[in-house]
């Protein structure tokens, strides 16, 4: 299908592209709409809203009868669907409402599926409809899961109530090995209309957005996608799933966007949240998380500017001691699943060591920095540090945080070795040595076998590209360009239009993992 990116008009290469099985994503602060066009639905697609009580799905799909020939992405909130009969349907989000409108009427069917995020509830609970002139008021009450939701659909045209439960195969989820992929949804309404507006009651306050001053069209494009995942208070880690705040994802994004002046106010607000809530969150990855996490506090220090460090110095030192008490024996020793590779039990993690060293530097603890650096290097060079932690793409992340740890020639040698063992010809890095028995070349979806044992993570690829560029563009030019090409392909020519997914199979460049991933976008922003 032809896709036109209106915002990339200046870049001929990306302005009009062909995309197989495109997925439209529109996102605005507290609601988002995801639609695919080839009957490969996911339970996570459709229209979602965020309320004070949590995140809810409202509409499973809005199905157009006429075939869509092309899509024009206007911006993160609006798009135009060009139908085969010449009609154009504009679909957009505006101040908490979902709009569809066209010049001449089109036929659609609306499917409801009100549910809480991550719920696999699958019983036929009746929806209450209150029809009125050009509007349906709908009430849904789920006593078993203890929530209710009210919304209304305004329309122009002829929209009729069907109110019939059907069982739908969610092929997208089936293909990614989801445990549940058959759900009962409500075929609710259908008819010829020229406009509908969906409005859910009690959404979170609307955040007006910020002015973007960046001129570079691709950077501006990426930055607006990143901002579309900001709800006025926090960044979502991703979509379709992971729409909550994940500390690691959010803090890394702030670090990757370090030189972006447009984001300063947002950054200040977010970092204040962390500083004000350190006691509760310093070793967590999510507010509701129970797993001990090693990097949140270190990433926070790495996100702060000198003034913020100075203003909060005593607090940071206090928590540094607490952190060291928990995570540092002689060298940093980690509890299971406490790093970004959260399916793995890593006792040592090179990137954590580098974040720690960088934090010491930022806190001006130079003697401690030197002492730890010497100790760690001795461990590494005497082979008493796990080799698979050094020879891993995490080393690129390590370089990003603490370039001064190794000599330049040492970085170069390690990078060459990593390229030899982990680089994938399509422009990515495998998360496992290609010759290892543990290596999975194809993504195993919800089954986490391939997750950190073969899958190629775009954010790591982008950081690798950044590191290689920093150290020697001339030497690594081909790889840097390949990675960029792969990331841009994922961004613009695969899956979710204008958004990057979490990862790809090692075998070939694919659109896999979480379909919209914040750190994939922000790391690409950094790397270009």
């Amino acid at each position, binding site marked *: 299908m032809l896709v036109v990116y209106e915002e990339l008009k200046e870049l001929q290469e990306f302005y009009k592209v062909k995309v197989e099985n495109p997925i439209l994503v529109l996102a605005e602060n507290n609601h988002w709409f995801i639609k695919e066009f080839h009957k490969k639905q996911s339970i996570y697609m459709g229209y979602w809203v965020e309320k004070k009580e949590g995140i809810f799905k409202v509409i499973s799909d809005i199905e157009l009868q006429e075939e869509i020939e092309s899509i024009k992405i206007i911006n993160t909130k609006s798009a135009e669907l060009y139908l085969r009969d010449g009609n154009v349907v504009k679909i957009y989000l505006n101040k908490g409402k979902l709009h569809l409108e066209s010049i001449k009427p089109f036929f659609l069917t609306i499917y409801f599926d009100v549910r809480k995020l991550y719920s696999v509830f699958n019983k036929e609970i009746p929806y209450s409809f209150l029809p009125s002139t050009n509007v349906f008021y709908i009430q849904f009450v789920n006593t078993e899961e203890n929530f209710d939701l009210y919304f209304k659909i305004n329309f122009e045209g002829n929209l009729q109530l069907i109110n019939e439960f059907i069982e739908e195969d969610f092929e997208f989820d089936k293909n990614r090995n989801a445990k549940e992929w058959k759900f009962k949804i409500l075929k609710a309404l259908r008819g010829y209309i020229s406009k509908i507006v969906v409005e859910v009651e009690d959404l979170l306050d609307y955040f007006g957005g910020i002015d973007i001053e960046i001129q570079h069209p691709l950077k501006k494009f990426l930055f607006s996608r990143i901002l579309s995942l900001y709800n006025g208070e926090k960044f979502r880690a991703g979509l379709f799933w992971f729409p909550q705040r994940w500390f690691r994802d959010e803090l890394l994004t702030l670090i990757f966007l370090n030189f972006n002046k447009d984001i300063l106010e947002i950054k200040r607000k977010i970092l204040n949240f962390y500083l004000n809530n350190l006691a509760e969150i310093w070793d967590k990855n999510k507010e509701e998380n129970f797993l001990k996490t090693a990097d949140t506090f270190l990433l926070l220090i790495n996100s702060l500017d000198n003034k913020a460090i100075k203003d909060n110095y005593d607090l940071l030192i206090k928590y540094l001691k607490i952190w060291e008490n928990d995570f540092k024996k002689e060298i940093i020793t980690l509890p299971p699943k406490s790093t970004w590779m959260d399916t793995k039990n890593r006792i040592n993690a090179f990137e954590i060591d580098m974040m720690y060293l960088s934090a010491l530097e930022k806190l001006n603890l130079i003697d401690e920095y030197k002492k730890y650096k010497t100790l760690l290097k001795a461990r590494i*060079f*005497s*082979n008493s540090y796990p080799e698979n932690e050094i020879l891993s793409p995490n080393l690129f992340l390590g370089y990003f945080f603490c370039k001064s740890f190794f*000599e*330049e*020639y*040492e970085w*170069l*040698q*390690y990078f*060459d*070795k990593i390229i030899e063992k982990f680089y994938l010809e399509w422009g990515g890095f495998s998360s496992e040595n290609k010759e290892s028995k543990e290596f999975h070349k194809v993504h195993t979806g919800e089954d986490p076998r391939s997750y950190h044992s073969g899958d190629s993570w775009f954010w790591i690829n982008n950081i690798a590209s950044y590191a290689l560029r920093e150290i020697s563009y001339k*030497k690594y030019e081909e790889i840097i360009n390949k990675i960029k090409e792969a990331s841009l392909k994922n961004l613009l020519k695969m899956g979710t239009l204008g958004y990057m997914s979490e990862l790809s199979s090692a075998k070939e460049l694919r659109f896999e993992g979480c379909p919209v991933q914040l750190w994939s976008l922000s790391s690409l922003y950094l790397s270009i």
Partner: protein
Amino acid sequence: MEKLLIEASWEVANKVGGIYTVIKGKAPYIQKNFNEEYYLLGPYIPEVSYLEFSQITPPDIFKDVIEEAEKFGIKVYYGEWLINSRPKCFLIDYSSFLDKVNALKYELWANYRVDSLRTGDDYNHPIAWCRASSIFLKILGEKLSNIPKVLHLHEWLSGSIILFERLPFVTIFTTHATVLGRAISESGGNLWEKLYSIKPDEEAYKYGVEAKHMIEKITAKKADFFTVISNVLKTETEIILERKPDFILPNGIDITKFATIEEITYLHRKNRDLIRDFILYFFSPFYKVEVSKSLLYFISGRKEIRNKGIDIFIRALGELNKKLNEKDPQIYAFIFVPSETVGPDPLIFNNLNVYRNLEEKIEDLLPEIKGRLVHYLIHKEKIQSETLFSKEEFLEIQQIIKQLKTSKTYPISTHLLKPEDEILSLLKTVGLLNKPEDKVKVIYYPIYLRSGDGFLNLSYEDAISGCHLGVFPSLYEPWGYTPLETALSGIMTITSDTTGFSDYLKTITEFNSEYPGIYFIRRKNRRDIEVVEELSEIMLKIARLSRSARIQNKLEARRIASLCSWDNLIKYYLDLYYVSFRK
């Protein structure tokens, strides 16, 4: 100048290890054949070079080259190496390249995949020197483009000279032992058991020698000619360096520095008696010892218990102790292996001093005693100690003797050792505790021998010349200078079939089966227990040899070792150079 031969080594005018001796020994012979067409190339290290090197004005032909090199920050010192034949050499000051060593290391990684992440100064300095030398040689090669030129490199230390630059020289690379083979052996591994099953590049990582190994391997592949020093090493390099050597260049020995047969006999007697005196002092405070007919065995070398076969020697001594009977001579076995000590054993030290005091006292009294002896003899009176000494003298002597000290355990070493000392543990394990009834008594001498060391007070050469047998059952000895020099000193020698020179000798001479002089025991592909048995049997056989048979053996040892003189072996080098200049 019609041709040019340059021999490069990190050990030219820089004594670090055995290569220094090799080059020093062969240099006069090469000079004789090549005259002013032979030059050595080494590192300029100010604190060492001033002792080893004398700078002279370079001939015109080199002046431009030296000046040109200076433009690259390379100071070239031209002069003479201060050994007897005073060969001409270039010493390269590489100090300005040390600042760039990381870039050089990366260059080797980028071009040859030499992983130098775990390297330190022992790698950095040779690499910096090689880079500076490669530039100098390139300039020199271009200047002398119209004549044939040969560059001979020794060991990995000089190997990267030809990795940094494509030089207009025919190149020869000689390795005297592989880095990996040495590393495995030094850490106690049995190279011969592993050799056919290891993946050398991976194994190098285990021993932390990956960078040096890779330099060695790549240089061996890149050189026009690759040579080794023995057949033993040939097998090793074929597997470890993946290149079959083109030539085998046996290492010669400079026999002029060794004593003549006549001197050997004199030195043996003199030093044997001194050692026997020492044994007397060492043991007699504890029990009566018999030294007059005793035999003196020894082992020497670095403290590499497995590699040098120290374990085998001790276990074989244990067996020998059981095999020797009443009639057999007493064996005193010295272990000349420097080791970490707590300090000299005060008890041994005290007893030695007491004996020296006693000797002095007796010496003072000798004129008196002489007079009394004459008196008693003339008057045919019975001589008794009470009558030989006055009462006062007798008391005085008794007082000195009373100062002798003993302990609950019998002495083994001149020095107090750490409880974890491996040699001491081995001796205890095999039951060699120097009990009065033991036919084999051991003296562990854990310091470097030197005159004035407070105990034997003999240099290494003097100490071994007083002994009857040197034992070197090494697992890994690519050439084996130590056993060779022992044999050349006219001492019966036992060594192993892993010793490089043993293969060479087998190809050039017949061994005398009755008086072999040098005994070779088989270690390759053999269990330790079998080696121990064979060694103990040979040591027993030697213990039971008649005096004349021992002399025959000593002469034969000397004769065979002499075959390894540079006079005989230089031809291999000359043949190689001949071929190289025609390439």
